[in-house]
């Protein structure tokens, strides 16, 4: 009974209400007005939404491969018998549990054009400064790098679990055949942890689609809308302009899009397995 209450109150009702909203114009304080399919028509003609969707895809295109490469590399290192292994595992996980807002404020300082640590390092070795958050072509990659740093600890753990399921005798047999470290990695490790890789792809796709805190705090969606993510745009429509009907329409469309992407990924995984 408590679960049913929770389900109807916090899941079923909001979902149904959001769908109803998509056919209305509502600014919260005035009564709803039925607008038929106007919100859906607007969605397909809204250049800002498509731009925000494109930005989100750019973020995913940078973030997911980077996340996998970095997490897998670090997991591989932390799977060896190195000194202070426990400390390093805990250290890499620490950013995962730190508040997203705190992390973004911290990185904003690191990315500072004039006083930021990264530009100080660049200029000290003779490179030009980069407008990490003020140059439209750098802003989204900068956010993707930060998001990778923040989340990599979680994926390291997942990869560590995957790595530890690979039977040790596979490596022993390969060694007897004279395989080097790279050959063992590409011919044993990678195929054996394929399910983990797919899981990481799915998880980071879902979390990447929900990109919000970073651009909201660091750039406000700028410069020139280059970091305006889909979720930030939906939020702005809803809570800056109180276009609740349109915001719900964007939200529904976006949810269906994520569902479709994840379904395709799932199909692909099943086929691979």
């Amino acid at each position, binding site marked *: 009974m408590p679960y049913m209450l929770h389900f109807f109150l916090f899941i079923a009702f909001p979902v149904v209400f959001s769908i109803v909203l998509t056919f209305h114009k509502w*600014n919260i*304080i*005035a009564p709803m007005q039925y607008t038929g399919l106007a919100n859906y028509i607007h969605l397909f003609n809204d250049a800002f939404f498509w731009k925000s969707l494109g930005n989100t895809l750019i973020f995913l295109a940078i973030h997911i491969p980077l996340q996998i490469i970095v997490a897998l590399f670090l997991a591989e290192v932390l799977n060896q018998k190195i000194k202070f292994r426990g400390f390093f595992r805990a250290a890499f996980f620490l950013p995962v549990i730190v508040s997203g807002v705190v992390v973004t404020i911290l990185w904003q300082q690191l990315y500072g*054009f*004039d006083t930021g640590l990264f530009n100080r390092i660049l200029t000290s070795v003779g490179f030009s400064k980069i*407008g990490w958050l003020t140059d439209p072509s750098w802003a989204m990659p900068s956010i993707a790098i930060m998001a990778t740093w923040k989340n990599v600890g979680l994926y390291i753990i997942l990869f560590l679990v995957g790595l530890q399921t690979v039977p040790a005798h596979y490596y022993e047999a390969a060694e007897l055949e004279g395989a080097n470290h790279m050959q063992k990695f590409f011919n044993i490790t990678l195929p054996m942890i394929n399910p983990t890789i797919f899981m990481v792809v799915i998880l980071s796709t879902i979390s990447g689609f929900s990109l919000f805190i970073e651009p909201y705090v660091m750039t*406000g*969606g*700028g410069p020139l809308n280059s970091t305006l993510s889909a979720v930030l745009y939906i939020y702005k429509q809803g809570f800056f302009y109180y276009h609740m009907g349109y915001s719900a329409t964007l939200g529904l469309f976006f949810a269906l899009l994520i569902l479709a992407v994840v379904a395709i990924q799932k199909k692909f995984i099943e086929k691979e397995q």
Partner: protein
Amino acid sequence: MLLSLSCGGKSERNNNNLVYWSSNNQQEIEFAREVVNDWNKKNPDKKVTFQPVPEGQSSEEIILAAVVGKTTPDIYSNMWEGDVEDYAKAGVLVALDTLKGFKDFLYSRCDSAVIKEVTSPDGHIYQVPWKINPIMMMYNKNEIKNLGYENPPQDYSQFLDASKKFKKDLNGDGYVDQWFGYSEVLVTWWQRLFDFYPLYIAASNGAPLIENNKAAFDNKYGIEVFKFLQTLYQKNYFAKERLSVRQDVFLAGIIATRFTGPWEISHADKFKPAGLEYGFTHMPVPDDHKGPVYTYCDPKNLVIFKTCPDAQRAWDFVKFMTSKQNDLKLIEITNQLPRRKNLETDPLFVNYLKDKPKMMAFANQAKYVKGTDPYSNLTEVFDIISQEYEACVIYGKKTPEEALKEAAKQVNLLYLK
């Protein structure tokens, strides 16, 4: 938030007392507490219960949630003028001009321009002009003197000239790290209330942004302001970097001017390094500008919600709260100015302000201020302007003419819907 307001709102009303919400900053809480205590002593049969607006991301969000949950206070004293029309259209505010004594009061407090500003397109008035924080140019007196000027820059040419002299690469790394001024580069709509909008009002002697449900800013003044600001960024006189995430750059001497309000005084006096002298002057204007220089005043007004059981009684309290004595108290406690005429000449206020030259500068400016136009959707209007501002002023991707034309086109579409 909605739930908590829905559950908590009505329980605040004790013994038929009216409920008044003030802003939740410490000075305004102190002011409200004193005024309410005075009122309750003098009117034991018409008591008012006071509480600061509940904590939230912004008071605007809290008020919105209270409106939705029908848990609004009877009286609220921190309503941004630009929001009033949206609430008036939604039918949640009392038309104050229908209350006994309102018009006489308003005409004695405000001049005709202010009355026009707060009158809604439907002909009613839903707000009492209460307090303002005019936006002026704060400047570092020492630096202005070091640059060889007797006075701070008054027009665009003087401002650009001083900017050129002040801009420096202090550490010799090839990058500028000392700029003449700074304005927030974020595209967030309300940031334009502190750069484009006061400069536009100054250039145009208070022209509207919106008139007859159409954009009115695509004119020579808007273009001049965009050109001026664009030059500041193109020539690196203003930083594109977000300086606001650092220590106070004005007090650290990294910038020499700032567009700001009287709230800056207490902060600067508390934290300024020894020897730093600063002052305030009007916003820079085009070189051929004539007449007094207007500015935006960030007006916050008093409203009575329709959930109030006795609007006439609430109005009596509002009248008391905005009396001359209480307006003086507002300045004394909060360093904010009441929106009333003759502020700079009335002996009651002059006697207090004469020893405070910085506040006096704001009081003198208060005669030439403008709030927002009485139209709904102003958030979106400023957001549209802000998008074009970023493209044109900060990144130089469009000419001022193109940017303002596009912004006007989008704003006109907004009011057509």
